[in-house]
């Protein structure tokens, strides 16, 4: 049924508020929709130069680079001052995602995948496409972002919740605690956007394969029919 690819992406940002934060790094990889494996040569990674002065941030209504954020991702103001502009990177990124949409319609656009993207990364994509101070597009006829598929978006955090909601060994669903801690994924370069994206993509492929196997063993036809007691 699905012939779309998945785009696993992640932002590193200046603060924790998705409606005021500024992206400082973006990374993404594309997963083959049917094979469920990372496509070769599909990595995208770039730093983005945020507004760095208090004056600029106040003018545009965005958060300054917070010390807490720097402590998490390690991208200092000095490093970011040399980075390409947010608009330039966003143009490159949208062009990159478009390459994986072979029918050039939003219906066939890659499906966004990530860890906690519903509440954090997706609103940033919306702001970059449609809201000031960014408003870089692309925008569809209904005024929504037109980078990723607008119908589906898969948040691995929700997926992990459904998997572990009754598991007493898991106390937090954060990527650090669950995937790196409980599931044993290498802690190497945690909170580097590309490293996080690769981890999420591998997790996504494994989980989707597991679901496929489960789904193929279950006959759903008339599963809720009155006669079916299974």
């Amino acid at each position, binding site marked *: 049924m699905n012939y779309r690819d998945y785009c696993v992406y992640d932002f590193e940002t200046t603060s924790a508020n998705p409606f005021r934060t500024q992206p400082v790094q*973006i990374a993404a990889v594309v997963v083959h929709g*049917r*094979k469920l494996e990372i*496509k*070769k*040569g*599909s*990595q*995208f*990674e*770039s730093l983005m130069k945020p507004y760095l002065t208090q004056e600029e941030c106040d003018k545009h209504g965005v958060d300054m680079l917070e010390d807490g954020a720097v402590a998490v991702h390690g991208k200092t103001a000095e490093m970011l001052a040399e980075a*390409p*502009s947010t*608009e*330039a*990177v966003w*143009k*490159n*990124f949208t*062009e*990159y995602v478009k*390459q994986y949409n*072979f*029918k050039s319609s939003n219906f066939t656009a890659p499906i966004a995948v990530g860890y906690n993207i519903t509440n954090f990364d997706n609103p940033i994509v919306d702001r970059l496409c449609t809201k000031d101070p960014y408003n870089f597009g692309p925008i569809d006829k209904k005024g929504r972002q037109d980078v990723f598929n607008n119908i589906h978006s898969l948040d691995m955090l929700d997926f992990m919740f459904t998997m572990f909601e009754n598991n007493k060994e898991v106390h937090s669903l954060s990527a650090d605690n669950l995937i790196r801690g409980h599931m044993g994924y290498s802690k190497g370069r945690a909170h580097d956007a590309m490293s996080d994206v690769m981890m999420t993509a591998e997790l996504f492929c494994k989980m989707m394969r597991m679901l*496929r196997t489960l789904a*193929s063993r279950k006959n759903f036809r008339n599963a809720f029919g009155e006669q079916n007691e299974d």
Partner: protein
Amino acid sequence: MKIEDLDFEDAQVWDMLSEGRVKGCFQIEGYLGKTWCQRLKPRNIVELAAVISLIRPGCVSAKVNGKTMTERYADRKAGTEDVDYMHESIEDILKETYGVIVYQEQAMQIAEKMAGFSLKEADNLRKAIGKKDAKLMGEVRSNFIRGSINKGIDESKAQEVFDIIQESQRYSFNKSHAVGYAQVTYWSAWLKRHYIDKYFKFWLRNSDDKQDTDTERHQLIMAAKIDGVEVVGPSIKYPFENFTKQEGKIFFGACNVKSVGKAHLDKYLKLISEWDRPLTWLELVTIILPNINKRSVENLIKVGFFSGLGKSRSSMLHEFSCVKQLTKVELTHLCEGVDEQNNQNTLLDHIKLFAAKGVKKDGGYISSVTRQLKVEEIISRLENPGRDLSDNPAMYAKMEEKLLGCSVTSSELDACAQASHADSTCVEVSDGKKGKCTIACVVKRVMEHTTKNDETMAFIAVEDNSGELEDIVIFPDVYSQHRDTIYNESTVLITGETKNSNRKSFIVDNIFSI
């Protein structure tokens, strides 16, 4: 030489038809024509006329006495079923079709010979069957049986023959029509055999007129590969409108690419005609291409029209997208800095030099500070594309498939390292390679079928760089394990063997996703 003077004796033409290389041949170019030509192996016009009559949908699907007419004819021709003429008096009439009533004329002759019908009465028989007129049929039937008894033939035999005529004539064809068709089929096959390059070139040109241009092109390109004719994508070396033959290959025309019209090509040709030497990519992207429709340029880049200029398609697309962000005035001034002497510099170098001159008030060419920021953003995009801009065969295969109807430069297989485990190609297998074979291929068609035991099996068609292979059978035991792997456009390694049962099929015993 006139085509009407051909003597229908060219063994090479008959060999070609018998091998099923029939794409482009009148009336038999479809799947049915191909498979039944391979099985019936026509060697003369009479047999070819029979093939044309027998591949009509009714003959192929409707069973008379438990077998379709086509299968009965094939089995009798191959000697696996005894030929039965039903009655010695009609042996002469049915001899050329192995006792199968293929043509309407045969039914009329049988009525004339067995039951003494006049030609008018015999024609009534044909009409009665064709129009399924029950009243007229009853009359004709009783006349036929009465006439046969008068000629000393058993009533039961007369009834049997009439029943067979009635059943088979519902689908039978007019012989004069069939032979006429067969002649045209032979002529088209002869032209294909002796002028193969031109044949494919003109068929490809005509593919635009077909309802499904992409499928037609794809089939023609696959058939051309099998016949040793190479079809390649459009090239800047031959910027023609339509398919053309150069260097022994057939090149796509620029206008055969989706969204590229004649007006776009004319504009391009007009712009480059002002130069007396081939242009470099830098000159093209700064001077020529910004003046042509954006989508048509992007599509030409995607299908490799500008390949050979030392840049990957992805980087050309990226640079073109950056250049399109410049205003006309900025472009004009940027072009001034591009000439033959400093062609060694990159686009990035040129834009940097251009930006370094600053805004107008400082003596530069950029109109305002806002535009200067835009130019700096373009520089930033060129310096940090964020991704690998080298060529990716799988991506080009997809782009070409979308924009040309068929991938011609590379296939998705080129991106699969495991494809090297293959020991055979599709064409080798379809040419009859014996024993176990492993093929690396892209799945092109999947047809599922439910068996009597309510299990699912599949018939698939695949292709690789050598050509196409149809008639691949995956039985339920294998298919149930690999169902997720087999879908349109999946890349797989399949192992199996060609088995001769009723028809040659490649039976799969294992599948690996690659």
